[in-house]
């Protein structure tokens, strides 16, 4: 049977090979993108795992003291780990050759680069030490991370002063660096990665499944012929499956190999302030075979579904009976899923894992339901156009939409799904406030209330007139019922880092911050969200463009005979091109627009509409519109030479 299927593919001529090749190509793209989508989740885990050593559990009678702090330099945030040895058993922390001795400062490569040429008084003076070495990759979230490990004496004030900021670790005794908690930002990124996974995986999977129909559609006629000469339905299904799965397996292998080869490229995507270690993208390598097995399986299932018509009634497909209209039930399914999503998103607050998971599944289901509703909408558009068409191109387009709305939908599905996703993403706030530059800067640091006066005067003495020092009482940022003592230092902007270094060394606890420094982290998260949004949009639009291109070529192949005969009877290619343009652009304008609006309307209650108020949302929508339209027009242009070749093919026996 396999031998026969292979013969049929091989002997099917150039066109059959072309369509099988297109399927393989589409599946390769699907596999590549799915491997990426799955891998990025594991990559975040890898990153998070490498931050765990910075917050190990407290252990009584441990061998070392650990504390951490968040330092700032200019517009950058630096993670500082303070370590003091209590006895000789203290193990070396990850990334360091030995436990850092007092006065040793170990820096990450990115920090070393940042500090190049920076005078010691502007930075290194805060740690009262000298650079002793470079922190290895196994202790860093990513290669761009700014991290300093500072060795101190156990009685150094930095090892005894409590931190008031919850993101920092107050001094604690430890006996090792394992079993700790990952950096809290990965608590933000990992769920975001899962959301991105759903956003990308559903359209990619829809595209992969549609690719199967390409081969099947091309086979319709021949399979019906096989049925007519007495092949059993099971034989027909098996033949097609073998042929499609052969193409899918080849595509999957190619796509997976391409993914493996291109991991260094994907690793350059900067998230959380830096690119990835290539090894992180291999963190989920165990899942690669699972994805590689799932893709051909999905293609096979899609092929079987596409074959139902042929198997049930070979005569019907061979003779092209009027197809049954698509029911409005499709719209009802979408509406039901949308209502469920809206209701659930209103019911409960966020935070509940199961609730969030269900919401995510529903969002994915909504995208899938949109794919179900699309053909119905295409058919409605066809009905309206067929009633109002005056010219031949419009009439041909309208009849085509009416006759095979599913095929017409395949041409624009990618862009419509991308529009839905872009509409959702445009709502996410991604704006970044500009950091203002002023003539003077004020640094403030929370200090121990009991020693506030003393610390303030020590700071004043250490600064020696460089800055104006004041002592305030403020409401605690983390617990509004408490007040805390705050030392502030106001200085000309040029002296900022110098003053900060002196204050940091003097006050020991929370490093001094400007008010704007607190936005650095949120800006970095926003920047990551922006990159994530761009990646998601790039993936869905790449999928959209591919699916538009492939279905455009597929539709020419499907109707090559008709096109040839139309050409013989004097139909100009211009008219056919116009008809083909209209049968994609008209539904695209209506459904694409509706998808963008639906994406916004359905997610607004959950996300809000802040994203629309800054430039990012409008930019996303504008670019979406431009790329989507360009993709579909480009796809049409891509298949024009094929159309010309097909039309002009008057060789005695075409095919």
């Amino acid at each position, binding site marked *: 049977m396999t031998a026969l299927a292979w013969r049929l593919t091989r002997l099917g001529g150039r066109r059959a090979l072309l369509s099988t090749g297109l399927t393989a190509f589409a599946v390769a793209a699907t596999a590549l993108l799915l491997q990426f989508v799955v891998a990025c989740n594991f990559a975040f885990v890898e990153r998070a795992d490498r931050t765990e050593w910075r917050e190990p559990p407290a252990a009584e009678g441990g061998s070392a003291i650990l504390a951490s702090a968040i330092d700032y330099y200019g517009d950058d945030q630096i993670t500082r780990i303070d370590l003091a040895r209590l006895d000789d058993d203290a193990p070396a922390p990850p990334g360091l050759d030995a436990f850092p001795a007092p006065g040793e400062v170990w820096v990450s490569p990115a920090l070393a680069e940042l500090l190049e040429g920076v005078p010691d008084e502007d930075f290194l003076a805060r740690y009262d030490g000298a650079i002793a070495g470079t922190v290895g990759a196994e202790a860093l979230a990513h290669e761009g991370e700014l991290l300093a490990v500072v060795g101190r004496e156990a009685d150094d004030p930095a090892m005894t002063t409590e931190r008031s900021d919850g993101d920092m670790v107050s001094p604690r005794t430890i006996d090792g660096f394992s079993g700790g908690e990952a950096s809290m930002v990965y608590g933000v990124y990992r769920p975001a990665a899962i959301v991105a996974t759903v956003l990308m995986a559903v359209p990619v999977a829809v595209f992969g499944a549609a690719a199967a129909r390409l081969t099947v559609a091309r086979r319709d006629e021949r399979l019906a012929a096989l049925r007519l000469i007495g092949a059993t339905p099971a034989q027909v299904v098996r033949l097609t499956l073998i042929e499609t799965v052969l193409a899918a397996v080849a595509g999957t292998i190619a796509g997976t190999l391409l993914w493996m080869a291109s991991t260094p490229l994907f690793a350059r995507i900067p998230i959380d302030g830096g690119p990835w270690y290539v090894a992180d993208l291999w963190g989920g390598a165990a899942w690669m075979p699972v994805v590689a097995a799932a893709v051909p399986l999905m293609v096979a299932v899609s092929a079987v579904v596409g074959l139902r018509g042929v198997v049930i009634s070979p005569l019907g497909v061979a003779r*092209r009976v009027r197809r049954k209209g698509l029911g409005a039930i499709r719209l009802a399914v979408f509406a039901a899923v949308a209502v469920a999503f809206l209701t659930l998103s209103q019911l409960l607050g966020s935070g509940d894992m199961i609730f969030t998971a269900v919401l995510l599944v529903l969002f994915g289901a909504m995208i899938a339901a949109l794919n179900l509703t699309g053909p119905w909408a295409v058919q409605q558009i066809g009905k309206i156009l067929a009633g109002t068409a005056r010219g031949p191109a419009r*009439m041909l387009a309208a009849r085509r939409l009416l*006759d095979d709305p599913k095929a017409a939908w395949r041409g624009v599905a990618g862009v419509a799904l991308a529009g839905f996703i872009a509409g959702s993403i445009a709502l996410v706030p991604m704006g970044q406030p500009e950091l203002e530059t002023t003539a003077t800067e004020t640094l403030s640091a929370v200090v121990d209330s009991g020693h506030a006066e003393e610390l303030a005067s020590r700071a004043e003495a250490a600064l020696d007139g460089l800055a104006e020092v004041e002592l305030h009482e403020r409401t605690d940022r983390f617990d509004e019922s408490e007040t805390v003592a705050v030392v502030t230092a106001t200085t000309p902007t040029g002296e900022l880092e110098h003053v900060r270094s002196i204050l940091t060394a003097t006050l020991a606890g929370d490093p001094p911050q400007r008010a704007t420094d607190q936005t650095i982290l949120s800006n970095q998260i926003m920047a990551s969200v922006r990159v994530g949004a761009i990646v998601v949009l790039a993936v869905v639009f790449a999928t959209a463009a591919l699916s538009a291109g492939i279905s455009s070529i597929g539709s020419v192949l499907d109707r090559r005979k*008709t096109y040839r005969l*139309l050409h*013989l*009877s*004097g139909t100009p290619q211009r008219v056919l091109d116009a008809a083909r343009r209209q049968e994609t652009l008209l539904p695209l304008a209506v459904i694409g627009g509706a998808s963008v609006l639906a994406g916004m309307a359905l997610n607004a209650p959950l996300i809000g509409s802040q994203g629309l108020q800054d430039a990012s949302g409008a930019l996303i929508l504008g670019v979406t519109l431009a790329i989507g339209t360009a993709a579909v027009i480009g796809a049409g242009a891509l298949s024009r030479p094929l159309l010309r070749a097909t039309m002009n093919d008057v060789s005695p026996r075409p095919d």
Partner: protein
Amino acid sequence: MSAPMLTAHALRKHYGTAVALGGVDFAVTGGESVAVTGPSGSGKSTLLHCLAGVIRPDEGEVRLFGERIDSLSERERSSLRRTRFAFLFQFGQLLPELPAEENVALPLMLGGTPRRKALGPARERLAQLGLAGKEDRRPGELSGGEAQRVALARALVVNPAVVFADEPTGALDRATGDQVMGVLLQTVAELGAALVVVTHDPLIAARCTRTIEIRDGLLHTGEMTEARR
């Protein structure tokens, strides 16, 4: 006898090294029907395509009402095929997604007639060919003979000067084929148009006013009687 409508002189056409036409002369006048017969691969279809301006001959010339058409641009030949010629094939020339009346109206619409106006003559043609009441059917919902009559209606709706038919009854049973052929000959005669039919079928050839036979790209006029057998 009136002057020929369509003439060809010394047509030659090669596909690679294979000779499809080796120097063929041809002429047909209005009201006349010519059957082109010959074994498979003899060059019948190539002759038809050259005469209809679908392909250009390597050598020789084709004239319609004395004007050369083989040297026209692709665009001009397309327009000519749409307005002065009409085609009838074995099957498949109807667009499956279009109802019968729109299939027939299509050539008029391609010529710039708005759909509403084009549908009038289309329905008239369909009615003349006995298809009243089936205007809304799609090709897949018609019998083979009906579909071929729709194709004929489409060929005739532009009032062509020459109708080219390539095995027009090849996909039909004998009785239906005879009927379609009868309608074709009758309506072409009524229009005063010329008909060129490529066929294997001696009975169809026998119903035409004249038969020519092509073998290996050359005309064998002397064997007319044998073809009529």
